[in-house]
């Protein structure tokens, strides 16, 4: 095999060095897109050559599996609190790369207090939010991001706005804060969106390395078991419903806070 082919193969099908081999079995459900998030985090940290100084803080929920997936220093925390830990660790080690991975419930419901805290103080951290519109680990309850009319175990008749309100748009909201350097929303439903999301992730970490301000990436992730869909139908639902409610793109990208 020639060298170029080897490189291409490694790039397409190789395993990033920062991913821990899953020898004890794969923890994720069929069609889950969290592993894709793990993969791009690992790839991007490798490309930026910061794996040795990265500290990941993973919330309660399926994201806590990352503790066994990413080969970096890491913490898991009480539900919703990773931004607090990130604050303290980044202040203690300003040269390290400190990031959190949280679900939509963990960041926007129980974690709204620490989120507002880090946004206000403009902590130089990166927050990655996986938005699957439900509480995944606990069996698919309504989350702040559930669509209007979406059926979940706590909205069996569908999310009714008079009782449960409207979905929260994290990326749009976070972009309004002056302390934020970068804010984007991506998805994994197509290869093109996957590549774009990967670019968002790299920019977000780059902003932290450049010490500019808080960076945030929201990723729409499929949760087929809790959506009661096949993995393929899940991709269709993301395309047809979720992206309409949660448009993709960069919402803020600055090199200086003002």
């Amino acid at each position, binding site marked *: 095999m020639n060298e170029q082919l080897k490189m291409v193969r490694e790039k397409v099908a190789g395993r990033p060095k920062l991913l821990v081999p899953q020898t004890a079995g794969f923890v994720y459900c069929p069609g889950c897109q969290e592993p894709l998030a793990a993969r791009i985090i690992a790839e991007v940290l490798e490309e930026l050559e910061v*794996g*040795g*100084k*990265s*500290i990941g*803080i993973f919330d309660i929920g399926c994201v806590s599996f990352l*503790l*066994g997936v990413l*080969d*970096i*220093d*890491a*913490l*898991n*925390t*009480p539900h919703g*609190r990773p931004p*607090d*830990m*990130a*604050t*303290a*660790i980044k*202040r*203690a*080690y300003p040269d*390290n*790369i400190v990031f959190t991975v949280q679900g939509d419930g963990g960041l926007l419901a129980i974690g709204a*207090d*620490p989120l*507002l*805290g880090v946004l*206000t*103080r403009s902590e130089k951290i990166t927050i990655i939010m996986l938005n699957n519109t439900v509480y995944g680990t606990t069996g698919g309850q309504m989350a702040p991001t559930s669509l209007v009319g979406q059926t979940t175990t706590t909205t069996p008749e569908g999310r009714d706005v008079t009782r449960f309100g409207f979905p929260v748009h994290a990326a749009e909201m976070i972009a309004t804060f002056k302390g934020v350097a970068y804010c984007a929303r991506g998805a994994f439903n197509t290869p093109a969106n996957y590549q774009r999301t990967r670019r968002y992730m790299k920019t977000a970490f780059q902003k932290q390395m450049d010490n500019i301000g808080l960076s945030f990436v929201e990723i729409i992730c499929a949760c087929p078991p809790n959506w009661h869909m096949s993995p393929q139908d899940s991709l269709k639902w993301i395309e047809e419903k979720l992206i309409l409610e949660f448009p993709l793109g960069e919402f803020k990208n600055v090199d200086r806070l003002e």
Partner: protein
Amino acid sequence: MSERIFVEGNVAISWGAATAGCQAFYGYPITPQNEITEWFAREFPKMGRIFVQSQSELGSINMLYGGAAAGIRAMTSTSSPGWSLMQETVSDLANAELPCVIVNVQRGGPGGGPIRHAQQDYLQCTKGGGHGDYRNIVLTPSSAQECCDLTQLAFYLADKYRNPVLILSDAIIGRLRETVELERIEFGPVPDKDWAVGGKARHRDGRRHLVEHAGDLYGRYPSYRALLQRLQEKIKEMQKAELRYEAYKMEDANLVLVAYGYTARVAKEAINMARAEGIKAGLMRLITAWPFPDDLIREKASEGSRFLVVEDSLGQLIEDVRCAVAGRTEVHLVGILDRHIPTDGGMIMPDKVFSKIKEINEAESGGSRGYHE
């Protein structure tokens, strides 16, 4: 080298922390501990150390989790309602075995309560407070000097046992201005924090470090049972080695007062009044509210000494005293309902305690062995 400063108890706690090498403080405003937070806000930046004003007590305690996980000496302080808010993470800190120091300058409760002094958090502080099986060492200063010294001790004990250590103060001790000898106390070596996070590149073995609050998921312990066994061992080690108290005029005492914090000073004065009248009263002043001196109290009770608990609450410490006494003798209480005026500014005064001492002394001993209050 030592230096003398004239400060209130709250500020003495701050000086104690700085002297012990505390690198980071996270705090949220709440009366009556604001002097502590404001001291760190003012002094820590000058020392090149970290001060963060958190967005809530939940923020403070979780930042403390982060700072402790990063392996630095870190602290937060709060008062009763804030302490309640922190409980989930206090439980997590114990499970994750993260060394850190938490100060609770007690105020009145329940609920929002009055913002003035009280001693109503004893049970919450000594019995855990959060969910699950754990114990924190609880240090209870009763002077500005002790505020400074016990804070230094707290950092040492936290590192020694990889466990949170609590300083249980109250609004009166916190606001009491006294002379303090500011001196760094050497307690001896503490274990390396070779488990802390800081990026793989920082670690000698180059392997990743995980800090997790489940204990057995990623290899810190082989099983949940092993984690619980370690926690139990640790509780026993701390109980055995860290009990601290002051015995005041106890040798010949047949009436033993038990108190901590500001009421211990009140009790001491009452004992002096009683001794002047020939009553053999003595004081068991708690320096650690946990571990608790069960054995000593049991011993005194077996000798027939009677007990009087002086605490500014409806009766919390008295439960531990009764438990140790186990019906052998009488246990009385001077509590929050015995304050000199019925407002939230009322205090337990020495003459009230003295009159209770006289009353117990005059009453015939050996009658009922039930609960006297």
